[in-house]
């Protein structure tokens, strides 16, 4: 009888331990699952951000452009050091609105005006070879802005 009692106690003890373990692990597992859903794995890329930043070489160019923005007179076409095959050329650009535009080549002077938005386009005539073109805009308040272009006119096949 004593043996039977001891066997029964051991059986109950093992059962209690298993149930306790199951309950404990179940609660822990549920907690970890809940925590995993609340804090999902971070979306950080494997390559860190600094490697994707543009190279340093572009930074000075931005500074140069910022310096140039002080002069409202900009030439859109043609670009500096262009080579053209026709003597007749149109200089177009932007400046302050309603400004007087004066373009001087080595031999001739051309004049015009910018529109209310500051846009202008003036036909000029080039000499053969390299032309140093001086462009000025004078606004209604007498503020003068200058620009210089080098344009080569040649009919030689390039």
């Amino acid at each position, binding site marked *: 009888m004593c043996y039977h009692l001891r066997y029964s106690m051991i059986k109950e003890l093992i059962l209690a331990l298993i149930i306790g373990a199951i309950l404990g692990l179940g609660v822990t597992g549920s907690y970890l699952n809940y925590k995993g859903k609340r804090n999902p794995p971070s979306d950080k890329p494997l390559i860190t951000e600094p490697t994707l930043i543009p190279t340093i070489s572009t930074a000075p160019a931005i500074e140069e452009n910022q310096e140039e923005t002080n002069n409202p007179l900009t030439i859109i076409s043609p670009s500096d050091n262009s080579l053209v095959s026709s003597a007749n050329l149109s200089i177009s650009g932007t400046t302050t609105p309603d400004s007087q535009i004066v373009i001087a*080549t080595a031999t001739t002077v051309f004049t015009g005006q910018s529109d209310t938005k500051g846009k202008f386009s003036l036909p000029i005539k080039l000499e053969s*070879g390299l032309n140093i073109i*001086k462009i000025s805009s004078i606004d209604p308040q007498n503020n003068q802005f200058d620009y210089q272009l080098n344009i080569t006119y040649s009919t*030689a096949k390039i």
Partner: protein
Amino acid sequence: MTKIILLAFLLIITKPIIAQEASNSATKTDDIKGILRQIVNQDNPTSDETSTSDIQLPKAFFGSITKINTNEITLNFQNENRLLRIDSDTTYADIKSRPTKLTSFKEGQTILAMGIVNTDLSMDCSRIVATDSKSITNTHQIISGQIVDVSQSQNSTIFVLVPSKNKNNQYQIKIDTKTVLTDTKGKNLTLNKNIISGKKLIAVIKPDSQIAQTFYAVRLISLDSETPTPTPKP
């Protein structure tokens, strides 16, 4: 009974672990895809910039030769060295535009190089012309300012212009019958009546060949015509 409990225990424990691994692997795949996309995008913008710039357009550089050999010329252009690539197709002209050979060019000589600019900013030269630097100057100056003094002589009129850009400076400007004076709309104006003290104008001038420190006015544009006429008050 014990076996059933153990089986239930295993099912409870393994479920969240499997779910976690699946989401991790999906995130990692997305990360790798994102990295590949970033690498591809990093490579592409350079080609876009190249297409929008002046590269591959005909250009002309004027400067002096600093180094010359049978394949290349180094040109000092606007205080920068530019590499000019030359080949058997490159043509050469002397100062009078007569055909010549590469051997006639020397270090220190000023040239006008024409060709196509490459992505490395070197130029594939099609034509090289010997050029006299004195011949390619533009002596014209464009000055906006106000007349402060006018003096008449028998043949010409000389006036003093103070530029609006630098009021400490003065230009002594000569005009004659060839000088053209217009208003801002391009309408011709009489010189004698309009060149008076206090008048604001734009002067396109060049150094006078006869009188030292004096400029000759090629073109004058009167700015005063733009001044609005005040409306009388009632």
